[in-house]
């Protein structure tokens, strides 16, 4: 500790180590948060069900989405990324997942809402397997922290059947 530079080096190093410990502690406390999420999403109407030129099925939907994600937010939450996934089974794949709609929730004030939207991303199949198919909707959320581990979870909300013929 015999010179200015030596003391400065010691201080900066120790301050950085303590900062790392503070961030680790903040992230660790997140594990004790047990959130309860209320969400519901359903298909109001199937706008279009057609076959593309490439031979793949394409569906366009109108959705009614409502949710309450306030319990997911802690002091260490930067934002929550949510997306609605359509899941179904085909002969080739046991699980097909397609994201229909996503949204970023920046803070607790914007975490409770209700919206009627068309799907942002079209539901396109690999092939034409969607005739009369049962499709399940699941809401996925990723809680992105300020420091530490990202927590992700999901919840099944509803299911619907696609028509047997193209519209």
């Amino acid at each position, binding site marked *: *500790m*015999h*010179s*200015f530079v030596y*003391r*400065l080096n*010691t*201080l900066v190093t*120790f*301050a950085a180590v*303590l*900062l790392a*410990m*503070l961030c680790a*502690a*903040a992230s660790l*406390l997140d594990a004790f948060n047990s959130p309860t999420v209320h969400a519901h999403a359903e298909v109001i109407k199937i706008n279009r069900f057609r076959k593309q030129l490439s031979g793949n099925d394409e569906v366009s939907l109108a959705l009614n989405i409502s949710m309450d994600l306030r319990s997911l937010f*802690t*002091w*260490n939450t930067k934002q929550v990324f949510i997306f609605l996934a359509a899941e179904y089974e085909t002969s080739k794949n046991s699980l097909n997942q397609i994201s229909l709609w996503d949204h970023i929730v920046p803070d607790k004030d914007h975490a409770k809402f209700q919206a009627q939207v068309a799907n942002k991303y079209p539901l396109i199949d690999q092939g034409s397997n969607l005739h009369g198919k049962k499709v399940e909707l699941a809401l996925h959320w990723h809680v992105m922290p*300020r420091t530490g581990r990202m927590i992700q979870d999901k919840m099944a909300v509803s299911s619907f059947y696609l028509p047997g013929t193209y519209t």
Partner: protein
Amino acid sequence: MFNSTPSKANLNPTRSGRLDALRSPSFRHCGEFSLPAMDWQGQKRSEILMLISLVVFGVVAFGVGYAIGSFQIMMLIYGSGVVLTALITVPNWPLFNRHPLKWLDPSEADRHPKPQANTATSKKKVSKQK
């Protein structure tokens, strides 16, 4: 962790007490840069103060941030705590120099030859005589 005050018992008892300063680690660098402006007691105090101050600010920052629920407040308190600690403990404040050690004057030191030089010349004399 920090240098202890050199005691007379560690050094050659036949030499006079004033030459103890010649064996201090700082004396070797006398011609290169300035002597330390903090004495041994000051360095010890500065280091302990630095460690305790940083830990206290860290704990307080975390506690207040968690209680209020604001990550930004935690970072602000901790950041200002680091800057404050740096201002108090890093520069050579006079309060850390209350027990200064009196180093030997360089002109006085030149009149007494260094011990390593003596043994080398005596060995040379012995070999030449043979």
